[in-house]
């Protein structure tokens, strides 16, 4: 089985990149003690950080001093031996800007326009109202929040706020704004913009994301360059929440002048680009924000993101040189990756992602759903899955094993849990011991017209047949799937999860608590898990949090309603001359550092 690491090594990542990435993770260790009271790195660090870090083979980028909110070294575990190797070097943190990709590639060529294809378009660009990955991932190019997550999605680093302090009780966050940050129209960002934006994000009734800031009881500006947020309760995930897209800082004056609706198809943020033109379902045109605060960035004048739903067509355009790249979550089918990798003109990036793929069973929602309410049956099903084979047939090797609910490499991912075994004998044994030795029918709801889910369902059907579980495959449209899920009218669902915030509070809150989602409609509740997840939310000591989250992952993996199928990288296929492009583990595109060597 090819792991991401192997693929990366073979195809697009140099060992140096690995060391660099591992280094970034390793830096977490010395930062631990300082982390809660930590303030951000200085400007130099940030310039350094943004000067063309890339996952492409050519770049050799040194890490930056990142403020990390966790002691979670474990994230590095998936990076195998390289991580440890890198850790040794990590004690020396380079303070000055380091040579960038320019060293390897010659001078960075400024300007120009790049075009990228992806499979689906955004639906609306208001940072507070949108809910689709295709939108969110572009919003980060137009807007910034007070802070942002680092490139490994394990730490928080300064953005609009150049530093911050946290009171000892963890209830008051004081952000010191970076001087001279300007919106794309040249107007200077003020504390008023910050307060207005965060309050709007918190109070919007139409936003699916208002819960992230629900704790921010009081947002004030003691002076012109300081924002003070008082929380109603301790919230260890608060900085992570502030780094999210819905906390984007929007120009208040712009909205007051044009009305809130303007945000649906225009942008006015402090990001490296602004939304110049949006032809719905056709393309999104980003143009350079001339007033962007990070010196020398962005390199490109324009970025055009074109929607092409059919993968054959997208790849033909890439191979024909009509576009500079194909990016996104599922724009390139897994069966085409090897072919593109062997093309000397194309650079395939398999970017580390928080993209975790599960099968979810309905154990007891709204009432017990036999035979899946029986733990033994679920365990038998888990043992009956030939995970390596799934990765080969469904993913064409483009995935690595997933082990727990928290994505590989993400904050607080428990590295001590080994991948689940495939053991058909044991599966049959467990089935025989269960209350339903004959198995039964299971209806799996898959997204209509989604080849990956269909392939997965077919493969699982063949595997579970061995233990008497007869999988009935129902392709339905997503609205029906949501509706039937909400009504508990399903047995199995397939789906990927990408984190929207770096803190695991989001995914665990969704799956293990009744509050918002009713245990993700799985019917599986566990008092110990609930207690831990609630306690971890307010626990400010990262080591204790880690302990709690590790235990949650163990229990949930052993008894829970999920089968961990695989963890998938983002696939970006670029022309060789495209330099500096990266994709964040949460998904956003690094157009800010991208330039064209042609």
């Amino acid at each position, binding site marked *: 089985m090819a792991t991401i690491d192997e693929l990366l090594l073979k195809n697009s990542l140099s060992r140096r990149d690995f060391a660099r990435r591992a280094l970034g993770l390793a830096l977490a260790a010395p930062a631990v003690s300082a982390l809660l009271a930590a303030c951000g790195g200085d400007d130099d660090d940030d310039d350094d950080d943004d000067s063309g870090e890339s996952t492409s083979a050519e770049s050799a980028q040194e890490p930056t001093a990142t403020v990390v909110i966790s002691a979670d070294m474990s994230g590095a575990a998936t990076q195998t031996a390289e991580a440890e190797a890198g850790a040794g070097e990590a004690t020396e943190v380079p303070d000055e800007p380091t040579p960038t990709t320019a060293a390897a590639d010659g001078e960075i060529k400024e300007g120009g326009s790049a075009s990228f294809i992806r499979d689906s378009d955004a639906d609306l660009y208001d940072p507070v109202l949108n809910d689709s990955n295709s939108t969110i991932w572009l919003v980060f190019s137009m807007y910034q929040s007070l802070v942002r997550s680092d490139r490994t999605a394990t730490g928080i680093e300064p953005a609009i706020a150049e530093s911050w302090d946290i009171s000892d009780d963890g209830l008051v966050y004081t952000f010191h704004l970076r001087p001279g940050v300007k919106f794309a129209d040249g107007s200077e960002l003020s504390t008023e913009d910050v307060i207005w934006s965060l309050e709007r994000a918190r109070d919007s009734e139409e936003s699916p994301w208002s819960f992230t800031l629900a704790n921010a009881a009081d947002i004030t500006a003691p002076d012109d360059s300081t924002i003070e947020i008082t929380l109603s309760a301790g919230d260890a995930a608060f900085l992570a929440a502030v780094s999210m897209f819905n906390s984007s800082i929007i120009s208040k004056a712009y909205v007051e002048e044009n009305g809130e609706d303007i945000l649906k198809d225009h942008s006015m943020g402090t990001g490296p680009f602004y939304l110049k033109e949006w032809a719905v379902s056709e393309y999104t045109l980003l143009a350079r924000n001339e007033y962007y605060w990070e010196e020398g960035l962005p390199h490109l004048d324009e970025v055009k993101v074109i929607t092409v739903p059919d993968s054959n067509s997208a790849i033909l355009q890439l191979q024909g040189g009509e576009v500079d790249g194909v990016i996104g979550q599922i724009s390139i*089918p897994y069966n085409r990756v090897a072919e593109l990798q062997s093309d000397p003109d194309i650079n395939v990036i398999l970017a580390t992602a928080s993209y975790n793929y599960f099968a979810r069973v309905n154990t007891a929602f709204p009432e017990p759903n036999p035979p899946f309410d029986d733990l033994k049956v679920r365990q038998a099903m888990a043992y009956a899955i030939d995970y390596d084979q799934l990765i080969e047939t469904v993913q064409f090797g483009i995935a690595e094993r997933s082990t727990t609910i928290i994505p590989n490499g993400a904050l607080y991912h428990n590295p001590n849990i080994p991948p689940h075994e495939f053991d058909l004998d044991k599966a049959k044994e467990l089935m025989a011991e269960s209350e339903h030795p004959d198995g039964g029918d299971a209806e799996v709801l898959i997204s209509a017209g989604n080849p990956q889910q269909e392939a997965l369902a077919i493969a699982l059907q063949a595997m579970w047949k061995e233990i008497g579980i007869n999988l009935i*495959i*129902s392709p339905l449209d997503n609205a029906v799937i949501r509706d039937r899920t909400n009504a508990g009218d399903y047995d199995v669902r397939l789906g990927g999860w990408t984190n929207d915030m770096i803190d695991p509070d989001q995914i665990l809150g969704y799956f293990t608590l009744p509050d918002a989602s009713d245990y993700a409609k799985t019917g599986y509740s566990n008092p110990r898990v609930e207690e831990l997840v609630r306690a971890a939310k307010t626990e400010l000591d990262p080591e204790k949090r880690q302990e709690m989250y590790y235990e949650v992952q163990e229990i949930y993996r052993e008894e829970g309603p999920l089968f961990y199928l695989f963890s998938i990288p983002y696939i970006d296929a670029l022309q060789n001359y495209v330099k500096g492009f990266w994709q964040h583990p949460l998904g956003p595109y690094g157009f800010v550092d991208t330039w064209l060597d042609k």
Partner: protein
Amino acid sequence: MAADVADAGALASTAVVRTRRNQLLKQLANKNLIIGGTILLILILIALLAPWLTPYDPLEVDPQSALQSPGLDHPFGTDNFGRDVLTRVIHGARIDLRAGLIAVISPFIIGVLIGTIAGFYGGWADTIAMRAVDIVQAFPGLVLLIFLVSVLGPGLNNMYIAVAMFAWIVYARLIRSTIFVEKNKEYVTAAKSIGGSDWRIIGKHVFPNAVIPCLVFAATDVALYIGLLAGLSYLGLGERPPAPEWGAMVAAGQPFMVTAWWISALPGAAIVVTGIALSLIGDGLGDVLRMDDR
């Protein structure tokens, strides 16, 4: 005078009927009909004998032999699950031939009935029928299909219902417009003028002529509906996976069409062969019923 005309008309029509009977056998020897019929017969035989024709199971997943190009073991190659494509194509004949036939029957009957009534009586009957046609035609069929799949769950039944509700308008409009032409022809006016009953006139004179284009159409439509399944599968509205339905195989093979052409192209070829057989039969039927070689 009237009696003379009536006699003449009766004589003429019996003569025609007699010639038709005599010609029928000769006409069945029509080349189109023979070739088309033979191909269809072979396809039906293949469908009936499917389980005994190849050693493989159409649903058996065998990752070890995935994506093999056509060769001795697998004449049509294997798909991404290692399933033998030939076996799946052979078993697909069972699903697709049946689906095409079932799908065509109800719209044909509904359409011919409504079209005949509307065309012959005209007036209010025609107005109502044509407004019904307008509603159906102006109604987005895919929305109905999404509705059906959402409510009834996936499967071919949705396609049958949707086709029954939509495809009849083609037959109705065709037969109506032909009847408009036919009923003004001399033989009909003659028959009418001597007081022949409406249904007798329709049945004996107008209908046989008007229904010809519909029959030709219906034969071809069977192929069309089989082809339609591919589009529906592409949108996830077709047969429930992993059934070896041809259209579903074409759709599932589309992402592989550059790298493993056989997964989609060979089931597609099966659809094409069926289509050719059916259109030959359609044309043959047209020839026979039209008796244009008389």
